[in-house]
């Protein structure tokens, strides 16, 4: 049977359709007032974690390299974009002009660091990327936690010791206040903007995977020696892919920082990187749609379970295990798909029988 769309194209369109349907459902819930405050507060984080997880899946699933530093790229994106917004919020008053620039700045700075650490590391084979990105994430977090930046009429002042060492003029303003982070970031992130950014990110990811570059990257993942034997420039393609992961991670960070009144570097710790990796693994390695769904469910779940606080982590871990079995075990997945199809067959048969009466 000849299909109308190529399987890859169909997969991406189904994802877009699911997300648009979810978006409309949420908008209806919010406008009719049936959404709780807790749920409303989670809408932007849903987008943030979805983008971070989907883009990390590009490195983990498509490139086949383990990265443990997604939080580091988010941190860079968050700080660079927040600084931009704090500095320019008086000069560029329109949020719809300022925020896209802030997002781009966050993405570009993160991508810059991604390429910088990618150049030496991606030439190597093995788990070096995991080791280096792990260290990178920690270094970035600790540097930002110790960094004091302020500006006055004579320009920018930096210090790694204390606020007093900055020697700011009386009219000076603090940008980064060490462990206290950045405050006064305009709250530009809304669910609508987050959703648009998520959709654009997914379109970019899917288009990337279904292009010449994506094909080359997957060839490298499947068989490096064969990929070299057909003349594919492996290092270049790896760098582009890792750079894109970092870029989108930075954008996720920018979205994150503009959702909070004050931002601390301690939020971007090792646990966040692992959490995002958990989304990727549970959603299915190489499955972009799965990453988004896992990110949303696993962000929502701990908050819902807050009311039964004692059993929260227990239920959370059971869900993790169940999802893991579902997504990684072909037999169990096949069993459930088969039962689902049988169930569907039964329902439709009954329906047909009833209609026949």
């Amino acid at each position, binding site marked *: 049977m000849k299909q109308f769309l190529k*399987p890859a194209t169909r997969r991406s369109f189904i994802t877009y359709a699911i997300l648009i349907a979810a978006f409309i459902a949420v908008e209806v819930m919010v406008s009719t007032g049936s959404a709780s405050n807790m749920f409303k507060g989670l809408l932007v984080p849903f987008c943030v974690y979805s983008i971070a997880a989907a883009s990390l899946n590009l490195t983990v699933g498509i490139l086949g390299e383990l990265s443990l530093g997604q939080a580091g790229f988010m941190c860079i994106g968050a700080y660079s974009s927040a600084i931009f917004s704090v500095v320019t919020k008086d000069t560029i008053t329109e949020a719809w002009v300022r925020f896209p620039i802030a997002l781009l700045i966050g993405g570009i700075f993160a991508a810059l660091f991604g390429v910088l650490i990618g150049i030496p590391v991606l030439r190597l084979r093995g788990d070096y990327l995991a080791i280096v990105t792990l260290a990178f994430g920690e270094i970035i977090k600790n540097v930002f936690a110790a960094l004091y930046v302020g500006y006055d009429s004579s320009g920018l002042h930096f210090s790694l010791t204390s606020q007093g060492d900055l020697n700011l003029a009386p009219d000076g303003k603090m940008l980064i206040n060490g462990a206290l982070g950045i405050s006064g970031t305009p709250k530009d992130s809304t669910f609508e903007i987050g959703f648009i950014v998520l959709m654009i990110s997914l379109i*970019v990811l899917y*288009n*990337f995977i*279904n*292009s*010449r*570059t*994506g*094909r*080359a990257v*997957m*060839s490298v*993942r*499947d*068989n490096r*020696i*064969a*990929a*070299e*034997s*057909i*003349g*594919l*420039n*492996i290092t270049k393609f790896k760098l*582009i892919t890792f750079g894109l992961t970092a870029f989108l991670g930075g954008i996720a960070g920018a979205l994150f920082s503009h959702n909070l009144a004050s931002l601390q570097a301690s939020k971007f710790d090792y646990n966040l990187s692992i959490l995002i990796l958990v989304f990727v693994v549970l959603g299915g390695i190489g499955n972009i749609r799965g990453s988004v769904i896992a990110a949303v469910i696993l962000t929502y779940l701990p908050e819902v379970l807050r009311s039964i606080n004692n059993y929260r982590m227990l239920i959370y871990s059971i869900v993790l295990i169940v999802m893991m079995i579902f997504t990684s075990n072909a037999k169990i997945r096949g069993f459930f798909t088969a039962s689902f199809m049988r169930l569907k067959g039964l329902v439709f048969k009954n329906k047909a029988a009833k209609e026949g009466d």
Partner: protein
Amino acid sequence: MALLEVKKLGISFGGLRAVDDFSLTIEKGQLYGLIGPNGAGKTTIFNLLTGVYKPTDGTIHLDGQNITGRSNIEINKAGIARTFQNIRLFSNLSVLDNVKAGLSNHYAYSTAAGVFRLPKYFRQEKAMNERAMKLLKPFELDGDADVLASNLPYGKQRKLEIARALATEPKLLLLDEPAAGMNPKETAGLMNTILTVREEFGVTVLMIEHDMSIVSGMCERLSVLNFGQLLCEGPTAEVLSDPEVIKAYLGE
């Protein structure tokens, strides 16, 4: 001028001399065979020719161009493509995508054109699809274009590997035991395919093969390798009746 000219090629792994003083000349359009007992160094020579290993001695010239010591990526671009003894396909990609990966360098467009779906993306992808189907046809794989490479039966996987190598438009195609693991019927089919492909794509072929029916039926000239050294070289019939060659294969 010869298409491939190898002079005094040698490589040592530590104290082991895997290939020593190996010379080879292949004319354009020839179907050349490289035979020898197991462990003689045949695949090592393929790895040297394709840049997987760097030779410790000797030179390799392709079409007059010195390609000694270049990387495998550069050597493929210079015009040598190969298949592998143990099949190396991109197993999670479809048959069509495997070939399209091989076409990457000839139908290039930038990553940005792919991500933003610029007109060049559609133009190049269309041309690539057409070219890929043309490559799959002689191997009777055009009906399996959407099948995952790992789901193909063994014989077809071998053929797909050849199609992928041909996609890079090589001047010289190296086949490492193309008929390994095939039954006589499949082998006969493969021989025909290789002959058609050679005509159609104007490619010179150097193959390692143990199946003597293929070697005597197809190859115009042979080189025999034993313990990393050239034992004998010449027209197929002469080489196969050489007492030294028979001794190396069958023992005394």
